[in-house]
């Protein structure tokens, strides 16, 4: 059965490029090469992997996931304002922390 050739839209092409770039950044380029990433009328298709390739790809994805998780743990819980003001910090050399005194508010 003959299949008609699919012509992706410019947006789909851009998405594919972005996907390939992300794959490369995650050091997965050895496993998911550009020729394995195809656009069809059904969407993006990632080509075939044999069992050993799939195993290595899975390991690599787990490593990336762990790194990302560590980054998230390291940062992304932003502290509430009140927590930031609990711990004091040392003053730079030749400077001292200004003492804020109680004063009357004058209009």
């Amino acid at each position, binding site marked *: 059965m003959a299949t008609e050739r699919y012509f992706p839209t410019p947006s789909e092409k851009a998405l594919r490029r972005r996907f390939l770039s992300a794959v490369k950044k995650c050091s997965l380029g050895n496993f998911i090469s550009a020729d394995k990433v195809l656009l069809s009328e059904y969407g993006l298709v990632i080509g075939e992997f044999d069992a050993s390739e799939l195993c290595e790809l899975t390991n690599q994805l787990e490593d990336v996931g762990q790194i990302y998780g560590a980054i998230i743990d390291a940062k992304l819980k932003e502290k509430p304002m009140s927590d930031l003001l609990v711990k004091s910090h040392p003053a730079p050399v030749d*400077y001292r922390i200004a003492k804020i005194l109680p004063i009357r508010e004058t209009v």
Partner: protein
Amino acid sequence: MMINAGTIYETELEQVRRAVAIFNITEVDGFGVTLASVAGLRSWIVTSPKIEVMVTGSSADFLGTFVIPLRLIKQAEIQCDLGEEVELTITDNIARFTGETGFSEMQLLDQDEEFSNFDTSNVTTAEIRSSQLGQLIFFGTEEPTGIRDRSVIEKVPPVSQIIFGAGSLEIITSYREINAKSIRINQDAVICGKTGQFVVNRVILRSVFDLLHSSENEMIKISADIESGTRMQIEGTSWKILLNREQFGAARFHSQIVDILDSANIEHLVGADGRICANIDETNIEIQLLDGRLPIARCTIELVTGVERSFDLLQEIEQQNEGRVCTKFFIRGNAIVACLDFVCGQSLDLIDELRALVADSDLLGECLASLGVIGDKLDLIFES
């Protein structure tokens, strides 16, 4: 109904005139000198948001408070000078000073004022002769010589430090902003309570000298709660003054920063030690004031916590610092911090600078975190 406020001698009115010289009394707005009988003594009161003065005269027992125009008091003093004493009566909203040679009268004003209570718990007191205090104030608040342009002296924050030392009272005034030397005057005094400093407005303190001038070398008592007091009381036998405490050094910019954040509707929180946390563009920025060569507002964003000092991380921070102007990055404990040291008192817009700090730090936390978490295993990739 006529109220007799008693017979008044020149010295009392002279002291009232000297006391009110500290103020700018706007008669057209209804302000004058408030007269009341406090504990059976005639009391003359003038207040402003920064200073309150009460001069106590001789015995007089009457009810109510009356606002006497300053012009009338000045005239009465001249009357006294000519005839030694005047009698003050108030009838139907008219105050009249009657002397030996005639009278002067004016309608009362309507802005009556009250002398605030001064909390004497936890105060440090200094007792000193008025001549010594006069010397302290006169020389301790004197401006550098040879400055004719007032705009030059206006660059100097108008504050003087009063130091309650062990057995002495001291005034220090700095003129660093115009490259003039600071002055320090010290006089023996009897000090009771904690030693320490209390900062007041230099210009207002200097005006107190006029009141001392009229005292006959009496003992003057100065009281202030050095730790948490907001006012200082200076008290002679027939007068007392309340002076507001002022912030000193970089701290004097604290209220300005809070006002700027308020005006810009920026959510912020002030900690117990005065540190400010402001939320700019959904990022929390901590602002701490620092005293040193320049008054500094150190603005920091904690980009990421829980990182290790890996070589890659330090190298990247070094590159970031080299490539940035004003914003710098460093590691504090286990956190990576973006920092801007804002010099207070400049014409720069603080909010703009804070926004620039946030923009400079955008996404950097996650990038730097990756280096701090896995060290040299992961390269930092920047998209152009």
